[in-house]
């Protein structure tokens, strides 16, 4: 029996009978992937008009990007804000996730709900809200203000990722460590943390990416010398199609892909640890 006529599912439908599904799924997956990756070849085009496939290959848009002080400074800001957001959101997220996981207090459910509000509230509201509040305290256009706002966005993601890690961890290990003579803090750092480390790293990567890719809050509360890459990109998109954006986008796509593959790898490692 060849693959074609073998049953594809529990209802004994064959792979041949499923051909329409495979075709359809392939088309949809291409529709998902092509627009994500198309910027990569286009960024190497010599033309002002972003043809595909490019008739002449060149690195001029990368030169343009690297040679423009505005882009370089914005990139530095975005990286700086992303890293700081990661450094704020990851430990805070781990602490909160651990506390909510271990505590049996009645309030934990309400606190969890409070901590995930940044996922519920439309970002535009967070943007104008912080813009207004920062205006009152003079924090607009500051790195601190942006990091704080991005940390709020990253916290629920970090908490959810770390909580998932804790769920697949046997908490009795921590109890054993304590019975063997470790106090709570030692037990956490010596036993629990090393075992949820993949979740913690994933949370850190996602916190960075959340900040690095964030547009709307950046539009409002970042500016001047501290404007982010996304803010400049958004401005450039609204006005005209600057092929430099293709070069920057390519860099961002590569960054996302690397981080994604990293978390997939960590995920499979975490699964193998169980």
């Amino acid at each position, binding site marked *: 029996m060849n693959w074609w006529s073998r049953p594809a*599912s*529990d*209802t*004994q*439908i064959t792979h041949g009978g499923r051909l329409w*599904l495979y075709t*359809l799924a392939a088309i*949809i997956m291409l*529709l*998902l*992937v092509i*627009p*994500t990756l*198309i*910027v990569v070849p*286009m960024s190497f085009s010599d033309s002002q008009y972003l043809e595909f496939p490019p008739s002449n290959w060149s690195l001029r848009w990368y030169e343009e990007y690297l040679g423009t002080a505005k882009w370089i400074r914005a990139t530095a800001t975005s990286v700086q804000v992303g890293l700081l957001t990661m450094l704020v959101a990851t430990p*805070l997220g781990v*602490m*909160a996730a*651990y*506390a*909510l996981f271990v505590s049996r*207090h009645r*309030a934990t459910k309400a*606190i969890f709900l*409070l901590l995930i*509000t940044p*996922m*519920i*509230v*439309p*970002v*535009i*509201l*967070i943007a*104008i*809200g912080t813009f*207004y*509040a920062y205006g009152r305290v003079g924090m607009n256009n500051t790195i601190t203000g942006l990091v*704080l*706002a991005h940390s*709020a966005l990253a916290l629920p*993601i970090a908490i*959810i*990722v770390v*909580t*998932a890690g804790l769920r697949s961890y046997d908490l009795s290990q921590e109890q054993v460590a304590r019975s063997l003579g470790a106090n709570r803090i030692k037990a956490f750092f010596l036993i629990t943390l090393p075992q949820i480390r993949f*979740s913690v790293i994933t949370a850190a990567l996602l916190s960075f990416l959340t900040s690095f*890719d964030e*547009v*709307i809050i950046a539009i409002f509360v970042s500016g001047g010398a501290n404007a982010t890459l996304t803010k400049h990109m*958004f401005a450039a*998109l609204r006005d005209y199609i600057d092929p430099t954006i*293709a070069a920057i*986008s390519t860099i*961002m796509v590569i960054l*996302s*892909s690397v981080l*994604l593959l990293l978390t*997939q790898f960590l995920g499979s490692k975490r699964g193998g640890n169980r």
Partner: protein
Amino acid sequence: MAGAAPLHEAALQRQHRREQWSILSLVVPAMIVIILIILIPLSWLFYLSFLGDDGGFSLENYHKMTQYKSYYRIFVTTFQVSILTTLACIALGYPLAFFLAQLPPKWAGIFMLAVLLPFWTSLLVRTYAWLVLLQKRGILNEFAVQIGLWETPIKLVHNMTGTLIGMAHIMLPFLVLPLYNAMRKIDGDLMHAAANLGASPVHAFWRVYFPLSLPGMVAGALIVFVLCLGFYVTPAVLGGGRVIMVSNHITAILENQFDWGAASALGVVLLVATTFTLYLAARFFRFDAVLFGRD
């Protein structure tokens, strides 16, 4: 031992309380961030929305919304875009999730990258890509003209069409991930049993599989819908000023009139609509399940 005072009762209770608080104190830093960034600014906006021109309490900002035709158009556009995007995501996402759920887990993990890669890529990048793809001299138009689908390049971007295409692309993963999760949990034995009882594959699908996958689909659809309601970047870029959703209008009010009361009131309406939809969603699924693809 009746009558004897319980041993160490007070000390144990004190210790219990101290331990509970020391654990809960770990969430305090995170709570402070959320309170500073979310709660205080939102409360402030809420307060501003009820402030009249004279600085006293007033409903005029809300009253305006019922008066002006422009507001009406914005609400209609917002719902139109959100509903159409959601429907497009269901149409494209259901077969894809079904396909992925039928694969052996190892293969599903590989094909899932097609969903996760866009999910992880900056939506600004993807919006930009669509801008390039859909423009008059863009790939899509050239391809369509070449194979004779239409004769001259047509306007695909800076209008509703472009906005919908871009948003469906950006939202699709949000539907596929929870739906796939729900489908994976459907017991294969059920379909097997249905087949053994003589149901045709089509019949078994509609009578057994589809109803079981429905909660996952509804959950995903509600997420997509909610995210659409508050969307800003894609309509701003791909709509070219012709597709004005609530978020875009809030920004416009602030940029043009600097009217915080009106902008806040619109924001409050958006928040209420979002919260209500999510309340409905919460009845179908656990909220953190949405993010499973990222965990």
